[in-house]
């Protein structure tokens, strides 16, 4: 409807006013539109300039993901929604998670976590139960040759797991994750 109104209003001005007056009106409208949308343009510019390459552990993740045959994220993208966090912290955590997924995606390895815009969690209790199973499955593969396991620091539910993995052979603590590489 917004775009239909846009088309009809612009064409209407052109047809209903003399050409010179219509062009003047269109130029004035364009100026107003640019001025009015300046906060959105600023937001766009800010996002475009700050979103690239923000992952702190990028090199370490790349080095580990290259030889891996699969990458298991704990929690998965969907399970990250079940984490007991305030919305802003969850947003930041998911953004970091997305960066991790983008970094490992270049190796085209199977992962346990795929972004899906409709898969947002609605039933946290059911999801938590499901995530427990997924965590166990990832843990079972911890030492499987070729498996890379990435446990996010921001996920409160994984605190015990992180503590247990600190001393585990093949695991190392990075600034945002605990990363484990199964021995080949």
């Amino acid at each position, binding site marked *: 409807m917004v775009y239909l*109104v*846009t088309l009809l209003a612009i064409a209407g001005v052109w047809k*209903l006013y003399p050409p010179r007056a219509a062009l003047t009106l269109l130029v004035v409208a364009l100026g107003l539109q640019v001025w009015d*949308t300046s906060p959105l343009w600023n937001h766009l510019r800010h996002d475009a300039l700050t979103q690239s390459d923000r992952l702190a552990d990028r090199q370490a993740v790349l080095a580990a993901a290259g030889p891996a045959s699969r990458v298991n994220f704990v929690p998965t993208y969907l399970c990250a929604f079940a984490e007991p966090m305030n919305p802003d912290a969850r947003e930041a955590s998911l953004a970091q998670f997305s960066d991790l997924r983008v970094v490992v995606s270049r190796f085209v390895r199977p992962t346990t976590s795929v972004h899906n*815009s*409709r898969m947002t969690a609605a039933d946290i209790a*059911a999801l938590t139960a499901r995530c427990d199973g997924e965590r166990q499955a990832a843990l079972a593969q911890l030492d499987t040759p070729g498996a890379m396991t990435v446990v996010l620091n921001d996920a409160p539910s994984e605190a015990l797991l992180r503590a247990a993995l600190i001393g585990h052979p093949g695991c190392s603590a990075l600034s945002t994750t605990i990363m484990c590489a199964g021995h080949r």
Partner: protein
Amino acid sequence: MVPDLGLPPGTNIGLTDSIPPVALVAKLARCWYGYLRLYLSLWVFFCYLAQGPACAIGLYVLGVRNVPALSIGGLIAVCAPVLLFRFGYAALCAQFLLLLGLAVHLQLACEASRRVDILYHLPRLVVALLVHVYLFAMMFAIMLASLLQGLWRERLTIPAALAQLATMAVLIGAVMWACGYLALGPIPMKPYGPRPLNLAAPFFLAPSGIFGNARLPADGNGEDFAWLGSGMVVLLIATLIRAWRQIGVMTRAHLPSLIVGILLMVFAVTYSVRIGPVLILGIGPERLRQAVLRGAEHGGTLHTLIGLLGPMDYVRIGLYGLLLAGIAALVVLRAWQWRRARFPHFIGFFMVIWVVSLVVRPSATALIISSFQASS
């Protein structure tokens, strides 16, 4: 489509925001350029680039032939707040598809068009489906408006309309099947409706550089953001000042398109209509949420929902249904009065099919409503 990615059951590639057609191009380009990790950025850039020409095409169809006017119109469309607000959401930046769809609709609806062929919408419908289902739903509504307009003006016969719809259904169904749209898994569907659409959103001044509010209000709902922009409001007022006497004639000529638009707005508002805290129409969001969540384990969403509803719920659902049906009935009655026989016959035919589908497979209606509501 890519089993090694380990997609959970029920995932469909059309909702992964990966823009499959562009991903395919990036994958092919990998042979020459290596890993093309920036393909989503290139896609967003393309979306912004295509917005202006798409608007200019729409304006051309409406009779604007002046190059400076077309250029300025295109630039105004690039400065559409609804586009800029979606920056970062790569799939929903493809709003040029809507402008192209509207251009096709306006071409088919114009006086000079002797024959209406809604198959012209097919390529955009398929592309929209592969970009995001929300865009597909909007494109589908535009196609529906073209179809109803063709029947209204008697430039499209009912057999031709059915044949074209069947062709589209086969092709789109094949794409949906390939993308996993038809493979419903145990993933709980997101219940829609708790965030009502603000019908005044096109005139809601936020964020706006002119009015000094740089952000949405803290309690604002980004999903209903639809501010036209000050420049567009000026143009709209200028048009209405000169054209208000013609509104009646235009309404009569384009009644089906107008009604499709109004129905979309009513449908998109919410399934839960309130006055203050009092629920007056539809179903309470919590009831639906519970039904969706328990549905997978207890015989389906609709089955669970029916068990949760009380007498007052049925009254409110009935009233909401009456409101939607009343709008549709108004058009059908007008068609009958103005001797537009094809239109009510076609609507009647589909009402029969819908009733049969409700009897045979009621969950199909619930699924379609759930999938399409938030897209309107």
